[in-house]
């Protein structure tokens, strides 16, 4: 069996975001393997450990994505394929290119992150599946292989459901699916030698994007930050707080 994780490199949620000239500027930001994609990498490594086969990471993104791919290889994936393109490309266009690579790779099971920590998009997994004519399951919290099918539990708008899916299929991750492992030092050393094949997106027919980002701005609401010290007299602080909420904020 072959398992693929589609991954992305994104800014760490902990690092501050800057905007210059109406554009997010990632210079100086810590870039990491998207934490929702970490679940995907962990899942394909576990599948390989349990059933044998190959665990491959695939990505569509700028050259720097190689760093995130090395992290996935250090966790235990076998090799990588990176489709390179600078700048924003919409998920439908990305799906076309990724589908070509996946047709070549012919995996049985594909995992990818449930939501991207940069574009806040949830579309990629389902879009790639559609481009391949495969089924997709989003927000997967439990997964097992069963006689050529997969049985998966996944979140809906409210509640969840259990589905049986014919393979090959694409699953997007949700917290609870697994606990991603940390790369070990030997893992990091080995990852340096693992193969990453790079393909220019243009070679896969990508020219431009159907969606263009025109302008970005930091969206932080001004907060009043009226902080009361309640370490010595908690009851008095609570009284002052409730008074402020009632009389000033008028929310109680």
């Amino acid at each position, binding site marked *: 069996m072959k398992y693929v994780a589609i991954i992305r490199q994104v800014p760490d949620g902990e690092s501050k*975001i800057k905007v210059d000239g109406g554009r997010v500027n990632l210079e100086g930001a810590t870039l990491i393997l998207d934490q929702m994609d970490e679940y995907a990498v962990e899942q394909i490594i576990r599948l390989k450990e349990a059933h044998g086969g190959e665990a491959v990471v695939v990505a569509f993104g700028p050259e720097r994505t190689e760093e995130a791919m090395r992290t996935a290889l250090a966790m235990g994936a076998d090799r990588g394929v990176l489709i390179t393109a600078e700048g924003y490309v919409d998920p439908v266009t990305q799906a076309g290119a990724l589908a070509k690579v996946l047709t070549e790779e012919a995996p049985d099971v594909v995992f990818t992150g449930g939501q991207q920590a940069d574009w806040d998009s949830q579309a990629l997994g389902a879009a790639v599946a559609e481009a391949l004519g495969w089924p997709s399951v989003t927000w997967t919290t439990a997964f097992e292989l069963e006689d050529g099918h997969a*049985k998966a539990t996944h979140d809906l708008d409210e509640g969840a459901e259990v589905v049986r899916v*014919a393979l090959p299929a694409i699953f997007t991750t949700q917290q609870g699916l697994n606990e991603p492992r940390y790369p070990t030092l030997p893992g990091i050393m080995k990852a340096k030698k693992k193969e990453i094949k790079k393909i220019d997106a243009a070679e896969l027919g990508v020219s431009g994007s*159907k969606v263009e*980002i025109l302008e970005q701005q930091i969206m932080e609401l001004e907060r009043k*930050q009226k902080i*009361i010290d309640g370490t010595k007299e908690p009851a008095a602080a609570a009284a002052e707080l409730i008074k402020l909420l009632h009389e000033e904020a008028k929310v109680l």
Partner: protein
Amino acid sequence: MILVVMDHDGNELRKGALEGVSRARKLAEALGGEVAGLVVGPGAEGVAEKAKDYVSKVYVVSGPDWEAYTAEKWAKAAHAAAEAAGARVVVAPASRTGRSWTARLAVKMDAALLEDTLDSWAEGDKVYATKYSFLNRVLEKQAGTLPAVISVKPNTTPLAEPAGAGTVEPLAVELGELEKKVEVLEKIAETGGKVALTEAEVVVTGGRGMGSAEAFQMIEQFADLLGGAVGATRAVIDAGWRPYAEQVGQTGKTVQPNVYFALAVSGAVQHQAGMNKSKVVVAVNKDPDAPIFKETDYGVVGDVHQVLPAMIEEVKKLKGA
């Protein structure tokens, strides 16, 4: 022509359907043509009789094949309706399920996908939208080519008013091989609180610093007093103190209440992604450097086990007065 896919619960249209109609009307004004609707699934015939008051024509896809939702089927139905209507833009709710089938639909239509949009409009041969990105920390403007698929973030758009009776047209859609590949085995109902978290005007969230499942009785009491809903952080869900349905954040629910209480919550970015659009944020934390205080209007530095009981007493006094 603009197609709006109208969510319903089997009897009534959901709010998201009427938000979608408002968006579709605005797009139709700019692009020309009328607004058609689609209702799919159990109860669709009945709902169509209500939906027709909002659009010029309602397509209905129903029958035994359409009892259970799958992304593959819903995308297929929407594609069939878009073709029947000659729609260049499809509008749908950005619920979790909406966002999975619209991704498939966009590929079928080779369309620009504008996801989870706050507002959308058209000019010339382009559609525009605003949306949040970077875990809800950035507001961005996007432009997409036609055809386009636009999903509407819940509670962003005024609900449409009825505009006179349109027609109802059943649409026969055959399932193909792909649509038969996912079989729903079992539904698991959500175990949530009395007040729906995403609709609540007051949300009271407890974090890991509450210390135990029992300590959430205080949270519940406070929420009850204010007619609010209980929320929780992921650390609390992982500890098994509260059900996942109450989780607020990137991988939980997004809330936007009048007032949000973050009690013994550190304020991780993934948590903030679900609450940072709240009107007023109140925090209690014993650590004056907790990140949540940067996102707070009114806060108390102190032990939640001392401050919260006093807050409860103060609110009781206020309500008694």
